[in-house]
């Protein structure tokens, strides 16, 4: 299984509809400071059900909604879709492709969809957990956070191994 696409609209600096297509192997994202690279990483965490705004550098959950720039009005909604190739059947679903969508509006209500069907946060978290991405989501290492694995508590490190089990 692998992440085959990320689609974002109204998410942080990705005001306009954006699609990134990935393949297996090594994909490298580059660009100037503040261009939006780490925002892509935040989008992946967020779409997989991240519940703590500080983990994606915000103070509230609505901080992910594009809040305007010199050249664009702010957005009313933020939406991210992750598309996973599931030809190896790693995800416990019958589909060859798994599409996870998360959406939030200014009033704060988050919606989730799995392959188009309205779902709960728990369903998304279960799906992520099935491929080893537990609540710690250790497979996404945010900027400046690589040291955490070394600085964290023995209990946190245990949680990572438990997620994998």
């Amino acid at each position: 299984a692998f992440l085959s696409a990320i689609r974002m609209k109204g998410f942080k600096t990705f005001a306009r509809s954006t699609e990134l297509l990935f393949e297996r192997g090594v994909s490298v994202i580059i660009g100037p400071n503040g261009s939006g690279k780490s925002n892509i990483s935040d989008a992946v965490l967020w779409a997989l059900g991240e519940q703590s705004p500080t983990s994606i550098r915000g103070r509230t959950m609505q901080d992910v909604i594009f809040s305007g720039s010199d050249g664009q009005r702010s957005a009313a909604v933020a939406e991210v879709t992750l598309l996973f190739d599931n030809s190896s059947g790693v995800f416990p679903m019958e589909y060859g492709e798994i599409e996870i969508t998360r959406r939030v509006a200014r009033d704060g209500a988050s919606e989730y969809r799995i392959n188009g069907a309205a779902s709960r946060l728990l369903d998304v978290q279960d799906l992520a957990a099935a491929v080893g991405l537990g609540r710690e989501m250790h497979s996404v290492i945010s900027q400046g956070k690589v040291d955490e694995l070394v600085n964290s508590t023995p209990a946190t490190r245990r949680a990572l191994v438990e997620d994998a089990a």
Partner: protein
Amino acid sequence: IETTFAEVFEATRGHFEDMVQVLFPGGKGVLRLVEPDPDEAGVASEADDEEPSDEEPRGPGSRGGAGIVLEIKPPRKAPRSMSLLSGGEKALAAIAFLFGLFLARPCPFYVLDEVEAALDDLNLGRFLSLVRRYQDRTQFIVITHQRRTMEIADRLYGVAMDADGTSRVLSRRLTSLQEAE
């Protein structure tokens, strides 16, 4: 299908020790289980083991269970508190643990945001060799400012801030690395 914590821990431990051989040649890495200590600040050392707490039930079967302690002895140095390690050494140790977990139980993808920023040339090369070694077994999405990291990409994505203050993405294959800069 269900594996126990003990099995995954053992596998992680073995792989972590191997990864330390790659990232700290001549050095040594250890993963240990220790009784949970609510006062433990998270830094591995002998002193912590001498101050068990009575406030929480102990043993791997208890809620929370035994914690995992990481110890690294860089080559030529004596083992000591992880907090004293250098920026590069800490990043390397964390990368060793991450790859140890990966080899025990691979995730389908990894997003690594500037994890190699603190590494010097030699260590950067060791890290990149690990990414290349396992690129057929999982997907790596790497965010970087480092030229040498760009060089191992199968596919390169350039992100830019447009004139209107929003992000824009250009995606190129590695053959157009020159154009991407």
